[in-house]
């Protein structure tokens, strides 16, 4: 028992000329610089974009559900896949990772906010306005050149309407948003870690956000430059991508993919980080090969900058280019494989608790593996000559981005919702959501490999009734609706659990990292006391310490049992 005789600490005197009352209601959300509130704004906004992008996908699947369908016009169909791809990449997967990082990165490293809170708010608002500018194109003419906007199709001659310009401004606005966010994450991680948290004790999610930030900083300026050249080509006749004026359409492809491939890893690495956090918690076992996973993340980022031309194997390119990019794409499979092996090894000999976050994580490993393997098919460039731009590629990229990123995001939602809302998400509904999503996802996309192998190119609004194409496409369309119902269940679950969810308490999962040290939801200042970090699993140490203090000292003998009598 601490004695009460110590003199109370002097309360510091605060002098203020004027105290503004705390803003309330929606004003408090618009003016907030609290990383947790910004994180929630990010998560909600990006999820809304996810649902919009999902509806676009369903419309396309309806069109493709039958051969020679006339549900959509070619122009609408092209606009839909452009909107869908752009939305899912620039307005959902990349920024939702920033949303998770915003909320949890400071908490996980024991900081009280991000390094630059106002910059953080600016990042969010730029993202929102980027999305709004892009979707306003629906009122004049949405872009139709695909999310890759290849020149010369995206140039002034072949895309006269301003849809492409809306796309360019989306890239600029969300690009600046992500760039500022990345600088903020980097500065926060570099400077604001809890005492004792060296690089070797950084949670793996934070490692992945660090690498995500570095990749964004390296890749985004390239696409910003490329779309600026496209903009001047379109409006001032600069001809950078016009072969008749000394430019080259292939220049666009190189610049785009120099950004575009790192972008893939920007979208998947934070997901890897989440999986690396969640698996050990529910296997009740430390992560297998912490250093190997952190190192693999860094190696992936380095190689990610060297594989871009594997998107261009069918363009007129020198053989040395084909060979180099095949080898570099093979190389990147190695650290990715290492991660998968380490995750399986983490589960090995654990005591696995089948809670929804764990189920989503295991689902992630099982389907991401397929995306990784089909990536090797596409890296073998002669094989790619057959598979490139077919539904095989569509299947591959969805196995990586839905099977990978989206499943990781859902694992993250189920894992961290209790911290954000103070209440648990419904387990039963969560498992149903997973079951439908997993089933729906595999029905939709597994068959698309075969559709591609049968010779159906991507981005076509109709196909003839030859071979099994009609049946396969119908299966895929049915699957997409099952997937949609699964996603909807989680939306309902989230809305419902905010009101009726079981109280979570600070640490419902008995997890390893510092965000579980504080209340749920955390107070504005996050932590009253920031604990000293002594290992990569600080919460495990803290729980052990609490247990040691709570357990009666042995030498006191009979006295200690008297307390438990009532």
């Amino acid at each position, binding site marked *: 028992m601490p004695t009460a005789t110590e003199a109370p600490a002097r309360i510091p005197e605060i002098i203020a000329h004027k105290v503004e009352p705390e803003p309330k209601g929606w004003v408090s959300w618009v003016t907030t610089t609290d990383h947790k509130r910004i994180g929630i704004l990010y998560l909600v906004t990006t999820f809304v974009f996810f649902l919009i992008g999902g509806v676009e996908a369903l419309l396309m699947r309806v069109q493709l559900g039958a051969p020679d369908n006339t549900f959509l016009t*070619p122009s609408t169909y*092209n606009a839909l896949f452009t909107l869908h791809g752009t939305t899912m990449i620039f307005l959902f997967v990349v920024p939702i990772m920033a949303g998770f990082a915003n909320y949890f990165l400071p908490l996980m490293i024991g900081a009280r906010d991000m390094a630059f809170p106002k910059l953080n708010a600016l990042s969010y608002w730029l993202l929102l306005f980027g999305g709004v500018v892009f979707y306003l194109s629906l009122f004049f003419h949405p872009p139709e050149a695909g999310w890759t906007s*290849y020149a*010369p*199709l995206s140039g002034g*001659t*072949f895309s006269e309407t301003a849809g492409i310009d809306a796309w360019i401004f989306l890239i600029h606005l969300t690009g600046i948003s992500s760039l500022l966010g990345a600088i903020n994450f980097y500065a926060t991680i570099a400077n604001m870690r809890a005492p004792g948290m060296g690089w070797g004790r950084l949670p793996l999610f934070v490692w992945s956000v660090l690498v995500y930030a570095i990749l964004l900083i390296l890749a985004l300026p390239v696409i910003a430059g490329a779309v600026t050249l496209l903009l001047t080509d379109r409006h001032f006749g600069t001809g950078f991508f016009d*072969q*008749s004026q000394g430019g080259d*359409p292939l220049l666009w492809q190189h610049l785009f993919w120099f950004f575009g491939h790192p972008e893939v890893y920007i979208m998947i690495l934070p997901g890897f980080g989440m999986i690396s956090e969640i698996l050990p918690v529910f296997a*009740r*076992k*430390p992560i*297998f*090969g912490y250093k*190997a996973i952190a190192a693999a993340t860094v190696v992936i980022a380095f190689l990610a900058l060297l594989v871009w031309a594997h998107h261009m194997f*069918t363009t*007129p*390119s*020198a*053989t040395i280019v084909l060979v180099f990019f*095949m080898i570099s794409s093979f190389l990147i499979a*190695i650290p990715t*494989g290492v991660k998968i*092996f380490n995750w*399986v*090894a983490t*589960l*090995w*000999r*654990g*005591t*696995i*608790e*089948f809670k929804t976050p764990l189920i989503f994580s*295991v689902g992630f490993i*099982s389907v991401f*593996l397929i995306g990784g393997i089909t990536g*090797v*098919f596409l890296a*073998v*460039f*002669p094989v*790619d*000559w*057959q598979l*490139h*731009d*077919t539904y095989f590629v569509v299947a591959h990229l969805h196995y990586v981005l839905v099977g990978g990123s989206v499943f990781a995001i859902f694992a993250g939602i189920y894992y961290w919702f209790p911290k954000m809302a103070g209440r648990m998400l419904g387990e039963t509904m969560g498992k149903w959501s997973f*079951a439908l999503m997993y*089933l729906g996802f595999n*029905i939709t996309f597994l068959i698309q490999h*075969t559709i591609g*192998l*049968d*010779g159906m*190119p991507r981005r*076509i*609004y109709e196909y003839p009734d030859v*071979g099994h194409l009609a049946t396969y496409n119908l299966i895929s369309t049915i699957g997409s609706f099952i997937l949609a119902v699964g996603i909807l269940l989680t939306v309902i679950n989230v809305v419902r659990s905010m009101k009726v969810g079981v109280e979570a308490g600070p640490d419902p999962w008995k997890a390893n990292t510092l965000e579980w040290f504080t209340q749920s939801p955390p107070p504005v200042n996050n932590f009253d006391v920031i604990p000293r970090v002594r290992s990569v699993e600080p919460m495990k140490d803290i729980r052990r310490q609490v247990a040691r203090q709570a357990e009666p000292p042995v030498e006191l003998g009979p006295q200690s049992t008297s307390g438990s009598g009532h």
Partner: protein
Amino acid sequence: MNRMRAALASDRSRNRRRAFALAIASCLLGGLALAGGASADFWTPESGGGSENAESIDTLYKIVLAVAAIVFIGVEGALIYSMVKFRARKGAVPAQIRGNTRLEIGWTLGAAVVLLVLAVVTFAMLDDIRTPENSDPDGYPTPVVADVKNASAYQPRPPNGRSLKIQVNGQRYVWRYTYPDADDNPLNNTFNYTELVVPTKTTVTLDIEAQDVAHSWWIPALGGKADAVPGHTNFTWFKIDKPGFYRGQCAELCGRNHADMVAQVRAIEPAAFKTYLATKKREIAENNAGALERREADAAKDASANDAPSSEAP
């Protein structure tokens, strides 16, 4: 009492969990089995029976597929095994292992070796895929093809240097084929749209170009894609043994009617091909002559129409 109820509840939920996991596993396996049984080409590209380069790509694909299947079964097997074996059970203690350097090095090297094997196999097969064969002795007689100037892609020729070189031009939303001609004036050359007629037993090399936006030439049974990019010349080849039709379509988004930009290759006997070329040439000449006559007639009519008012004007 409470504890008992809790234990019962957890038992029930465990059973439900087990049923749930079983349901998912059986769905997956069932789906895979069904898919596997459906047909052999479920897993492989639709590219046999056309040209030798397509066959080689097919073989390479199957080798990659075999390696992939082993990796897939190994990893998914380990994952499913640990899911079943290491479920949380009463009294089970999780092993507090933090890693194993030897294992890490082992699987890193293992993955590297698998990929090295794939790379070696690819290089071994590359020549078969990229370098055209000689035409058969009874093929259509073709001249030695001159080196292409300003070609941007690697353009190997058959060992004897002889091939039927056809220029393929992608334009929204149709393919134009131009056949070689003895004279130097390309405006006189025989051409056709959409359907490319070629002789069998003859090596055909294609120079692929685009006129407006990027397109991609692709006939699955006759080899991989070759993008047609404005300002560049891309290259592919094929040699067809038996007469027949080979279908494909543009594989690079080129605008609203990209889906309708189809292509078809019709292979006919060399003798028939000779006749085809002659007929085509005559047709084009007749059409051109007809067009010329019409144009002259139109011009004459315009002239007289213009003359009439001008004579009345003053």
